[in-house]
């Protein structure tokens, strides 16, 4: 709080003090009071005002300056009510009271939303779990009654399964709670799981999937990594180049402090101007608008999951030639336990 602001705020008070002093002096003069008496009275009046004003300034300035400092220093501004000390003047006490009341009400409100969102998330998890049952059942039916039409059903079923996973992982990635389990995972096994899961659809598009140097372990959550790779595969399938036989190459390289997983396809690539935005929510870009419809959620969720697991993901692409994603797994002994 600036001192000039304080004075400006009390200007009316000073005007009335000045007026009062003027009137008193006028009366004293009219009653022919002694000149010395007039001077002493005026001096006492002025000194008293200066003293009380100084006292007021000190009290308020310390309180408000303290408040402002703490507010500036706070990362979460709403914690200010917990941080302020109750001052000894009424106005300040009143403000603190209001802080506390509004804060309490806000906390209750947030708790209600948090409960709602947790319930919603539980429902989503349960729903995904339930929808997998009819999907499983249909997959088995297609298999037990092989025919051309069932091949087509199968492709659509795999799409449904993929979309349900997107819902599940979106809800997981947006949630603040830690529901992943980081441990040593074999890249070979993870890639093999996801390849086998997408076998029908990869073969349908005649894609050859090659792997190189995957005999390495990384620290991550296996299920989340499977989902991430699944999203990359489904993108590769969406953006196959009609000019050549589609190929996907998944390889890994190990360094002293990190392991890099590389995922490369020879699809239509990403235009250079779109590259900085592909991990953004709802971004579809040129590829998403032409041909295959895209929601712009897949890579956003991928990026989100990566950053929650502490992995870095980046992309490198040349339009019309290839797209390559790199996921960097840091090596951290902290997570290791036997």
């Amino acid at each position, binding site marked *: 709080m600036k001192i000039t602001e304080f004075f400006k705020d009390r200007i009316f008070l000073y005007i009335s003090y000045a007026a009062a002093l003027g009137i008193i002096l006028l009366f004293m003069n009219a009653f022919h009071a002694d000149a010395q008496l007039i001077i002493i009275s005026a001096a006492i009046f002025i000194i008293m005002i200066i003293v009380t004003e100084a006292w007021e300034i000190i009290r308020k300035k310390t309180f408000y300056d303290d408040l402002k400092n703490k507010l500036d220093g706070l990362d979460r501004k709403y914690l200010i009510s917990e941080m302020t000390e109750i001052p000894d003047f009424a106005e300040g006490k009143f403000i603190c009271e209001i802080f506390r009341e509004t804060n309490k009400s806000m906390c209750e409100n947030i708790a209600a939303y948090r409960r709602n969102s947790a319930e919603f998330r539980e429902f989503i998890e349960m729903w995904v779990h339930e929808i*997998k049952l009819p999907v499983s059942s249909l997959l088995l039916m297609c*298999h037990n009654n092989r025919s051309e039409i069932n091949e087509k059903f199968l492709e659509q079923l795999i799409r449904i*399964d993929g979309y349900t996973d997107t819902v599940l992982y979106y809800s997981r990635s947006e949630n603040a709670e830690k529901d992943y389990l980081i441990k040593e995972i074999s890249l070979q096994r993870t890639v*093999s799981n996801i390849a086998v*899961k997408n076998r029908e659809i990869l073969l349908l598009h005649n894609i050859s999937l090659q792997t190189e140097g995957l005999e390495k372990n990384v620290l991550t959550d296996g299920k989340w990594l499977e989902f991430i790779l699944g999203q990359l595969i489904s993108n590769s399938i969406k953006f196959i180049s009609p000019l050549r036989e589609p190929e996907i190459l998944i390889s890994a390289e190990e360094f002293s402090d990190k392991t890099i997983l590389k995922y490369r396809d020879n699809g239509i690539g990403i235009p250079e101007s779109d590259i900085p935005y592909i991990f953004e929510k709802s971004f579809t870009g040129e590829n998403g608008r032409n041909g295959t419809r895209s929601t712009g959620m897949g890579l956003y969720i991928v990026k989100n999951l990566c950053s929650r697991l502490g992995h870095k993901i980046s992309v490198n692409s040349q339009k019309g030639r290839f797209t390559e994603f790199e996921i960097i797994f840091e090596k951290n002994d902290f997570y290791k336990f036997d």
Partner: protein
Amino acid sequence: MNKIYIAEDDRSIREELLQLLKNAGYAAEALTDFQDPAEKIISAAPDLILLDINLPEINGELILKEIRRKIDVPVIMVTSRNSATDEALSLSYGADDYITKPYDPTILLLRISAVLKRSSNKASNRTYNGLRINPAKGALISEKSEIILTKNEMIIFQLLLDRQGEIVTRDELMTALWDNNEFINDNALTVNISRLRVKLSDAGQENAIETRKKQGYILK
């Protein structure tokens, strides 16, 4: 004939699984009433159990523990929750393998035959018409010569040999290859089979692999 017992509470999945297993040449039975499941499973004396981790009223993991206390029979756990903890738990309770819903039916069959093979310790056929097979070396050895097969060719040859005289579909060959981390496409499978044919006829086994149009291949 191996008998497989299914503990799965979703009626539709259960019926399709029974169909799938019967088509694949197994005797299959399923739990329909979930009172005292462990007892019922044990009294059926199956060769392998397919156990859902989420059964009504009683947890699949508890059933597994109870069965394990009494009989030693291979168990494959089926999970539908997408979390790593379930898998770790089912293995720690002594399941031989696990598979997550919704699963690829051919992969399920492959896992079943792998687990059964492991538990019966049935050594796969090691010779073919005087050719000795050395899988570690990836070679077919006859008295005169030694033919080196690639990993893919070996996987294909072994599957055909395991089921000598029967039709093996392209899909089954593909499944075996994919389950061994060879994610090849249709063209590559055709190429691998024709190379294998050439190598076999070099070893004096002309026309060993016969093509059955729209069905698959037979090793004679």
